[in-house]
């Protein structure tokens, strides 16, 4: 979500101009399959695992990982969605309203929460998500899964499961969709 907000909202808004394909649709599916296996391996199965997708980019990724986990583990992990608008540290400077719903219907106390997002950039969205998750109960552990880690962290946060490490410069933009992963720039900023 961090990536989308930064790129599509005024005064930073603009049009995404793709430069290169980083992962094809098939590569993306392979990466998600591997990450799902890693989630199951790390946690000795998925009995306590709850996937929480960050709105909006992380939600389809979380659903796709849940589908893979259902296939390999034979049980469907619960999937929640989280919008962190009320936890951001730039409220008042550049307010962003929640654009999508938060839906975590279970008490997270004792669960292993796997936060899922499309792109990990500064880490501020993840920081906000960690604060938000605390309000749903005391999770046993929180892990982080991202399709692309593009660097430029501003906070001491690292992912547990990564689809692709992608060195970028700050001005670039990474777009994750069903068609794969593209890198490019945003014109008209």
């Amino acid at each position, binding site marked *: 979500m961090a990536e989308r907000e930064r790129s599509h909202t*005024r005064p930073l*808004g603009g049009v995404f101009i793709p430069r290169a394909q980083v992962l094809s649709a098939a590569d993306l599916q392979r990466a998600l399959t591997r990450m799902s296996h890693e989630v199951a391996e790390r946690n000795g199965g998925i009995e306590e695992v709850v996937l929480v997708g960050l709105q909006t980019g992380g939600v389809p990724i979380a659903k796709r990982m849940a589908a893979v986990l259902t296939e390999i583990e034979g049980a469907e992990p619960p999937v929640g969605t989280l919008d962190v*608008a009320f*936890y951001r540290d730039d409220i*008042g400077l550049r*307010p962003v*309203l929640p654009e999508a719903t938060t839906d975590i219907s279970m*008490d997270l106390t004792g669960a292993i929460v796997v936060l899922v997002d499309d792109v990990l950039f500064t880490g501020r969205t993840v920081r906000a998500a960690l604060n938000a998750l605390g*309000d749903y109960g005391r999770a046993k552990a929180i892990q982080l899964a991202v399709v692309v880690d593009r660097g430029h962290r501003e906070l001491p946060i690292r992912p547990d499961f990564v689809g692709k490490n992608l060195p970028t410069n700050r001005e670039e933009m990474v777009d994750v969709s069903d068609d794969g992963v593209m890198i490019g720039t945003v014109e008209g900023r």
Partner: protein
Amino acid sequence: MTEFRAPRHLLSIDDLGANGIREAMSLAEAFAEVERRVIPKVPALRGKVVATLFFEDSTRTRLSFESAAKRLSCDVLTFNAGTSSLKKGESLRDTVEVIEAMGADAVVIRHSCSGTPVQVSRWVSRARVINGGDGSHEHPTQALADCLTVRQVIAERQGVEPDSLGVECFNGLRVLIVGDIAHSRVARSQVLAYTTLGARVTLCAPGTLLPGNVESWPVGVAGDLDAAIKETDVVSLLRLQRERGSGTYVPSLREYTQGWGLTARRASLLKKETIITHPGPMVRGVEIASDVADMEQSVVKRQVTNGVAVRMAVLFLLLATSDARGGIQRG
């Protein structure tokens, strides 16, 4: 992506317009989700100070503004007219300036004198002013809570998320407002809110309790409540404001109840889909029969619950933008 510029103050429903009502309701649904959490509190407005200045009695408005502010992690200053320096002769203007000097970012004001929040908004330099009910003028957050509640009921019947309905579900909705309209600030805000969203509003009241200039309002007036009540989607009842002298406008409470109260007999004329709202406080046995108030069609308790979410939305809209360069962005 849409951009919405929040008003500086919320003095009237007119400050929001249709776009603002839509944003406030959308935000209120997000805050209603917060209220259902294990820990119903978010750090969205940490460090902001909200002062409540109530010069008139109130239970739900004051409590819901204060609980809304606390759930957003604001600090709350509570001003009590009865025990303040007003008693020593301090003027309203000086009182407001003192509260602003203490760092209040928002001032919620209720006063028995219509127009007080407007006057206060001219005196403050940086604080945002929110009308918590002024005389018989307006009570905007109550009207927002009513709209939110009505939309939730419509959404439940259709089996969809309330926010997915936007404000289009109000288009052509028939709303009947019954009771002491002349003295009711809720009625004025309701009329503005509902008509702004495209609803068809009809008023029904004893001639003495209709506002003097009702012809200039964008509403219809019904003479016969029994007939009007059969043909409405929402019926909003109002309390007889006896503290504003309404008692002298009707021959007796009993006659008022017979003519304009929602008695059990009248409630049996309602379509079963008609939603009954009442902004509270209710006087059972006068404007609404006790059994009717507890009917399934009555959403009185939900209006109170929604009052907190709506006030969180209003505080967030006004305060989250206070240091921002542009408007609020969505998406």
